[in-house]
């Protein structure tokens, strides 16, 4: 079953009304990802891979085309509906961690659930925290953690709501190669353990190799 499907997805910047040169960040992307699959998207800087991920996660609206997650066309929703859909069905891991600095590790992990007002699954969250090796860091603040640890908190946060899909944007970009491989290993293990679908963006071939499938993107189109 396809958990994620895009049809002729386009995102253009600039162009006639603004007077700036037209940039086709995405120029007709058709993509399908199956339940439980671990897909990596590779491409050079400016190839449009981050833009693609933002579209997949509903963080930005496309110029044309559609994105369906679990069979639901997400851009048919109003902004707030989309936000609520996002927090229930999509987990994000960003390159720059993006933890809320004033909240502890555990509070950061529970944040999406609390925003949703849903009852957090305590045992599940403990399981995630254990798996990611954060058990003795529950009460720490993000700035007391190393980069790798912060990224693990971000992964735990993405998994906490048991989303349909986890989207990771260069999660290892700010880490050294050792830390990067650790984080990747944990991402892959937790994906398998909890049956998660993961789409990962990277420009690092070694990292990309860890996925089940590699999608190459060039000039806003899928190359292979």
């Amino acid at each position, binding site marked *: 079953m396809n958990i994620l499907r895009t049809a002729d997805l386009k995102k253009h910047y600039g162009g006639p009304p603004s007077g700036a040169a037209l940039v086709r960040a995405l120029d007709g992307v058709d993509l399908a990802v199956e339940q439980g699959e671990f897909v990596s998207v590779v491409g050079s800087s400016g190839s449009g891979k981050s833009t693609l991920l*933002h579209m997949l996660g509903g*963080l*930005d609206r496309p110029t044309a085309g559609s994105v369906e997650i679990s069979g639901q066309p997400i851009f048919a929703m109003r*902004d*707030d509906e989309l*936000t*609520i859909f*996002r*927090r*229930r069905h999509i987990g*994000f891991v*960003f390159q*720059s961690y*993006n*933890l*809320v*600095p*004033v*909240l502890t590790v555990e*509070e950061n992990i*529970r*944040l*999406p659930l*609390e*925003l*949703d*007002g849903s009852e957090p699954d305590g045992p599940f969250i403990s399981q995630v925290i254990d798996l990611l090796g954060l058990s003795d860091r529950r009460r720490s603040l993000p*700035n007391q953690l190393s980069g790798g640890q912060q990224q693990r908190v971000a992964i735990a*946060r993405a998994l906490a709501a048991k989303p349909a899909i986890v989207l990771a944007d260069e999660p290892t970009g700010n880490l050294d190669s050792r830390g990067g491989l650790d984080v990747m290993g944990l991402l892959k293990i937790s994906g398998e353990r909890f049956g998660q679908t993961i789409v990962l963006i990277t420009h690092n071939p070694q990292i990309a190799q860890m996925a089940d499938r590699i999608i190459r993107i060039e000039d806003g189109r899928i190359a292979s």
Partner: protein
Amino acid sequence: MTGSHDRAIRRVTRRSLKQNRSHTLFTVLAITLSAAMISAVCGFAASGRQMVFDFLGQDVMEAQLYSATVYTVAAVFGAILVATSIIIASNAFRASAGERTRQFGLLGAVGATRKQISAAVVYEGVFLCALGIPLGLLVGNAIHLAGAGIVDALFGEVNAARMVHGANGASELHFIYVFSWPATALAVVVSFATVLISAWLPARQASRVSPIDAIRQTRPSPASAQSVQLSPLTRRLFGCEGGLAAKYAKRHRRSYRATVTALAISVILFIAVSFFASGMERSMAAALPYAGVTAGAEYIAAEDRRLPPPVSARVADRLAEYPGAVIHLEETTEDGQALTVWLAETDDVAGFRAYARSVLDQVIGAPSAGEYRLNTYDASQITAGQRAIMLAVRLFAYGFVALLTLIAVTNVISTVVTNLRLRQREFALLRGIGMSKRNFSRMLGYESLLSSARALLYGIPLGSALAYILYKGFMGSVEFGFAYPWTAVGISVLGVLVIVFAATWIAQGRIRRLNVIEALQE
């Protein structure tokens, strides 16, 4: 949204407020002062109404009219206060908007709806008000109590002079502290609304930024390299640090603008309100001439027996021979009677009266058969009464200026501190690539100079314009020319420099102690 939905939002807001302690503190201080002033104005209005009703009786048409006047004056002062508070407080909130933009973006990315983000703003406002408004009410009532005490003491002199006559034989004015629930409720509602509007304006902007932009912290309008090009003169005059300061000012117009706006508003208000205060003082002085007069002599007769000018002049000359006396001569017609008055400024009232009596008798001749009357009298009490009224007016006017300035100053400090805190990373970077503490101080010094100069550039003309508008609107009827408020302008130039440099110096201490590596990693 139910309460449980927003628990996380409330927690984030509370922790952020706790972490930005100095900003929170200054914002609470600003709210306290605004609430205090609004509550004091409401309280004075209540006291004024009470005074009018006690003096004239509640049912009299005039009393209703006078109390309406009291309310109008209170409403004008209140409106100035509310407008100032909104501009100033929203500016303080805007200064931290950069940080809020990022936080809202983070929350948005993990699934906070716009409604929840608005809830964060409302909660922040409620939290700050919960601290600031009760404190403000206490301070406001203290100001009201003290002010009423002083004014009532001044009225004691007016009452002693028996200058006023009310209904039912009332001849004493009393301005007493009255606690009024409606006034208190009004102060609470107005202060709360002020804070919410102030928080809402910048937050609405911040919540519109898309999560990605907020996370990346891309500036909405990045300046092009061309536009931050400086003239070689700046570099020559102020060196590398000056160049950096000027570039920062050009590139980060937004955060820089918060400080400049805060300063400019303070300058505008200071110039306009002190002009207004001195104008009030002068129109009072015009209405109550010869403030130094302590004694008088008069000639009263039927209209056709007016005193010939040479005679009254001769009397004036003779009276002026009394040691230390200054004489003012006035001739009027009142109720069909001709009146010639010689007013004297003298320290020895009794001696002057005796001397004046003899002069009048000598020059005009002792009255016979009631064709005219000659009189001398003691005017010292009346003068004291007039002085008391003027002092009361001056107290109100300059007290208002002082408190308004205080609100503005707290705001300036809070924007400067916030601005510098938000730039910690940039500072750490500069230190990291080899800027010495000395260079750093110089750079901040130039920045202070730049923002002061820009604030004065806007503040002085606008403040003067506002002063002129006030002059046209309020004082057109009173006879005196427009005097440019030079003193106020001078004080504001000095004040701006002192405040900006002091605030920067205080905030800088913290940044100097900053660990470069930690700040860069943050």
